[in-house]
């Protein structure tokens, strides 16, 4: 058995642990551990002149676990099933409106400003959690790694700018706030939502899972209409 996958596994886990330690010290959404790990790994590969493909031999083993992990999102959803019963209509309407707006604004703004097809289709699923966004981007002709990076920046933008925007709009209802943060900025927004309270965070986590599934079903059907090739 050859040891090549060891490099990717060790570098990824090491970078992740270091990034978690950094976040403990710098309490800001900009010290996002995914962003920090990705930047550290790219710097290392670039400085040591190691090709991405060599790193990816081990990376693929970690990426494989996204299969069971996305499936596992059913568990927090099931635990919060009470919210679906109590706020079912608000959640359904909020997720559909937010999900459709997320797709249309991403495609129309970037396309209107002259971005190429690969960029537009990588931006289209930017509001849903990265593992789902990567799969959806691959499905519609975007670039999964680019989609993952754009998703993370979207999450940080929503976590930083979301609460002030909602305040400016006069949105005080905890269900509406959690819903907006989860739909627009997935897990990173959800972490921010939990800082506002348990109910805001719980609604946000449900909204994130539902918008992931909603966008995964809708986007491939919508793309021929909104981005004809």
């Amino acid at each position: 058995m050859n040891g090549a996958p060891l490099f990717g596994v060790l570098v990824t886990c090491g970078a992740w642990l270091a990034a978690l330690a950094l976040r403990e010290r710098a309490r800001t959404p900009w010290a996002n551990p995914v962003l920090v790990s990705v930047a550290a790994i790219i710097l290392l590969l670039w400085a040591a002149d190691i090709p991405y493909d060599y790193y990816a031999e081990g990376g693929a083993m970690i990426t494989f676990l996204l299969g069971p992990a996305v499936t596992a999102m059913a568990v927090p959803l099931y635990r919060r099933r009470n919210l679906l019963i109590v706020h079912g209509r608000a959640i359904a309407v909020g997720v559909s409106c937010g999900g459709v707006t997320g797709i249309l604004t991403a495609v129309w703004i970037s396309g209107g400003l002259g971005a190429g097809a690969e960029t537009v289709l990588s931006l289209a699923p930017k509001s849903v959690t990265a593992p789902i966004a990567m799969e959806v981007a691959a499905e519609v002709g975007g670039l999964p790694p680019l989609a993952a990076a754009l998703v993370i920046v979207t999450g940080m933008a929503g976590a930083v700018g979301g609460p002030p925007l909602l305040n400016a709009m006069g949105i005080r209802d905890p269900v509406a706030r959690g819903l907006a943060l989860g739909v627009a900025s997935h897990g990173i927004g959800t972490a921010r939502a939990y800082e506002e309270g348990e109910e805001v965070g719980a609604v946000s986590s449900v909204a994130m899972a539902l918008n992931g599934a909603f966008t995964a079903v809708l986007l491939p059907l919508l793309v021929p209409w909104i981005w004809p090739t």
Partner: protein
Amino acid sequence: MNSSVNANSARFLLGFTLLCLFWALGVLIVNWTGAPIPANVVGMGLLAAGLWMGWVRLEWVAAAADGLLRHLGLLFVPAGAGVMLYGEIIRGELWPIAVTLIAGTALTLAAAAWAARAFTRRGEGDRP
């Protein structure tokens, strides 16, 4: 090793196996129907349905699911690092990307919040 450690590790393994099984069901369905949906999202839907109907007990999958989701971020780091292969695209289209991220995210937040609030108004007391 005492028996509770054995029970915990067996529960994790049972959960991991079930998660992979539901994912595999998703793969089968996507292959059969040709539906353009990620197989793991189909797996999530099937597992949610299984839990809701009581076919799958929460304690069978909870340990593995919580373990995987606690470090979900770690799992997409290798794919994210692949962005180094597309530096040229990002540099060339930095402006449309930045505007889309900021304006698109703000509009999405606003749309979701407005739509949800229309249905959560608990009486008229919320209105100024």
